């Protein structure tokens, strides 16, 4: 097992690519021989972040670019999910549980809450009109 490694993937903001993003991340993280549970947690957090890029960042337009960078050092995994979409006006509000700008019933405003409960750290950087970056960290058990 290498001590350090990193990769980057880029794909269009279509929901069909969520599975690709999940598998790519979990294959890379598998280099650290995690448990299935740890992989599920990480995939779930990544899914929430990617869905946000698609639905909110790009307002469901399928020609936006989503970039995911993933790196690890020892057993700490860092994942950054980036869009170049519309940005978040107030990040603190957005990260509050149940806060949502979606009008559809099924969306519950719990995406960031899920990310925070699956990962050890979640940081969001956003600039209106420039895009959003969600950086997440998770340490795996030995």
């Amino acid at each position, binding site marked *: 097992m290498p001590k350090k490694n990193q990769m980057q993937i880029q794909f269009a903001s279509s929901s069909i690519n969520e599975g690709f993003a*999940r598998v790519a991340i979990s294959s890379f993280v*598998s280099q650290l021989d995690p448990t299935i549970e*740890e992989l599920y947690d990480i995939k779930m957090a990544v899914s929430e972040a990617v869905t946000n890029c698609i639905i909110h960042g790009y307002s469901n337009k399928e020609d936006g670019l989503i970039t995911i960078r993933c790196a690890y050092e020892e057993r700490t995994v860092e994942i950054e999910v980036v869009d170049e979409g519309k940005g978040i006006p107030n990040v603190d509000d957005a990260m509050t549980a149940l806060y949502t700008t979606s009008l559809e019933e099924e969306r519950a405003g719990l995406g960031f809450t899920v990310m925070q409960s699956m990962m050890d750290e979640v940081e969001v950087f956003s600039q209106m009109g420039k895009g959003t970056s969600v950086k997440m960290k998770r340490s795996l058990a030995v």
Partner: protein
Amino acid sequence: VGEIKRFLRDDGMIKVSRSLKETAYKVRILKDELIRELNREPTISEIAAGLDLQVEEVVEALESNAEIESLNAVIYQ
């Protein structure tokens, strides 16, 4: 070469999506078994070793397991 190989291999025409679901089912069974045996969550390589698969194959299968309740459901879908 390609043509000959294509005729010789009998699983060649099976869709990947189906074979991944079968693997996902086996992963789930073995995972429960290993949890009982080891008293902890098994790692992905322990699962792969137990099924005589590559870690890659297990990773891919995990993505396809969503609503599969039984192997029968997979085989006769």
